[in-house]
């Protein structure tokens, strides 16, 4: 099994540690991982702004980079959902469809494909889990509070395997943080207010770290935490699943 590692543009540029942790974790679990170096972006920032018709360049590049692998794995639920829903190519629709079927967000790949039941990770801290909307409601990484269905959570299933980690409770376990791509600047006031409220829920629960399967939500909340001079940090879930802190 060969996995193509898709590292979204903003993780590549601003959060390399999340990407390194993803790569290391997958290798540790015995996966043959390849990082195609000519990758850029899934095209979501344009598409969500109403410019999906401008994303063909991104789509073609994505197909060129990733169609050869057995699986494509990425540490971002939002970017994975975008590819799953919107990757098209008139000239190579079969390849596009193939990628849409074999792309996985990291925690769902670990749970559903690798069927991980044990991890050698240790992270002795109080952690708040932010359920990123696209991962949760789009990829169904976890059950949603709106639905009358049996509960489950792929990220929590994995975090429970980490030694020393203590999960904190939230008043609103799956409310959006307000990042929303270009929404974060186009609707600045509401975006910031949503972020402040989300952060406050974690702070009230006593979190030392806020984690998520999506770095974009964390980038937004980190911006707010740092403006508030808070000591609470954000950390991608891959970094926790790969942690060896004692």
């Amino acid at each position, binding site marked *: 099994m060969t996995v193509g590692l898709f*590292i979204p*543009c903003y993780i*590549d*540029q*601003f*959060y*390399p*540690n999340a*990407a390194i942790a993803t790569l290391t974790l997958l290798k540790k679990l015995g996966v043959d991982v*390849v*990082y195609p*170096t000519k*990758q*850029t*972006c899934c*095209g979501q*920032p*344009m*598409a*969500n*702004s*109403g*410019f*999906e*018709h*401008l*994303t063909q*360049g*991104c789509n073609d*590049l994505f197909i060129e980079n990733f169609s050869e692998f057995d699986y494509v794995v990425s540490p971002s639920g939002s970017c994975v959902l975008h590819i799953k829903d919107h990757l098209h190519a008139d000239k190579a629709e079969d390849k596009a469809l193939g990628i849409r079927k074999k792309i996985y967000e990291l925690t769902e790949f670990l749970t559903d494909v690798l069927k991980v039941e044990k991890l050698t990770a240790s992270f002795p801290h109080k952690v708040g889990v932010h359920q990123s*909307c*696209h991962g949760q*409601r789009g990829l169904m990484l976890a059950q949603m*509070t*709106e*639905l*009358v*269905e049996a509960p489950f959570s792929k990220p929590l299933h994995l975090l429970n395997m980490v030694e020393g980690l203590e999960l904190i409770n939230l008043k*609103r376990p*799956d*409310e*959006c943080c*307000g990042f*929303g*791509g270009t929404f974060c*600047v*186009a*609707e*600045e*006031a*509401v975006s*910031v*207010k*949503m*972020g402040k409220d989300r952060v406050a829920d974690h702070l009230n629960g006593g979190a030392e770290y806020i984690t998520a399967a999506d770095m974009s939500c964390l*980038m937004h909340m980190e*911006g*707010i935490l*740092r*403006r508030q001079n808070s000591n609470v940090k954000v950390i991608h879930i891959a970094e926790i699943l790969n942690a060896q802190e004692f």
Partner: protein
Amino acid sequence: MSTGAKDHAQLSDIFNEDEARVDWHDETLWFVRAKRDKAAHGLPEWETLRETASQIKDNVLSNLHDYLLQFEANAEKNGIKVHWAANGDEHNKIVHSILKESGVNRIVKSKSMLTEECHLNDYLHKNDIEVIDTDLGERIVQLAEEPPSHIVLPCIHKKKEEIGELFHKHLGTPEGASDPVFLTAAARDHLREKFITRKAAITGVNFAVAETGEFVVCTNEGNADMGAHLADVHIACMGIEKILPLRKHLSVFLRILTRSATGQPITTYSSHFKKPRPGQTMHIVLVDNGRTTQLGREDFRNSLKCIRCAACMNTCPVYRRSGGHSYHTAIAGPIGSILAPNLDMKNYADLPFASTLCGSCSNVCPVKINIHEQLYKWRQVIVKEGYADPKKAMAMKAMDFTLSNPSIYKIAGKAGRWVLKHAPFTVNNKLNLWYKHREMPEPPKQSFGEWYKQNNKND
């Protein structure tokens, strides 16, 4: 409503100037969402009910023409006069002409979002007809000369003290009185006189049954019944999508409507109107007003399944923090944002963007409208039709160019990180909306791509 030329973002900016009030608004509506959750989780068959309701509505939309004609024939058989209005203007004229014929110039009206959509109150007012809204929340916003901010809870944006002030000014309650029970009693007295003296009543319609020609009006206050039962003329105004094929379908819809709206098992009054009582005339105005256009838009047609429960508003993290008036349309929130562009794409081009696409709206929707997917699709339509900001279009083209070219992307990324590190003042300023209330990410020494190249020489 008129809000000048301000869009959702600008109006939300103003709403957010008072953070304590935003917190109060958010908590108030979250409380309603929590009540909805409790009611839904109390029924193990909840998801089956949603699916059933959704399928019944799919059938209605696919056979709307036939059901409407069946309803018309049965309603007329029952002695109801049926009118057809192609748009809001026609609807208003029909209502006015019925009132004129009846020699009535003062009326009572229970809640009808359709009449809000058609701006009936303004129209009748201009034609010297006095309209008293009898739903308590609607009466409050009417006294305040504001439009409703929520389709089920019209004055949810007002605190009880503000309502006390309004009542003091208009109904003569003591200054400073803000006890909800006391204020409600005062409203009751005030409205009782209107019910007794007005000769015509307008109601909305929640459901109309094709099989029987009857219609159902749901209220918690009984104000629709008080109005209709005391009036010589009853005019019911309904959007053409409110049809249900069979009476037994009400057993699904009456169970999901109020659980979704307020968390109650059922509305206090679910009144069936089938024929006028002796001496009364009963009219139904069937209104299109863009609905058949929406029915023809494949991606958006199922927005017509909406039963106006407002669950999507209560759950929407944006609505709760921007207020109903920020949507500058009769129906606010996520559902309003997919309905309004159909009526006026230019004026409502901002609304599909007033969302993070979190998807909570689609999950609470009792008729399973894919609201957040339609928001995404409207964005594409609005941009293609040329209603996007030209500056944004330029930026998107530049982004496309950069992201389609790996080598340019690498240079741009490196340059961006260099600027953040060595010249942060160029982005850490008020021109950068991110920076207004958030720090920029700390630029790392190297990108992952650079790290990978260094550490995987063989690849």
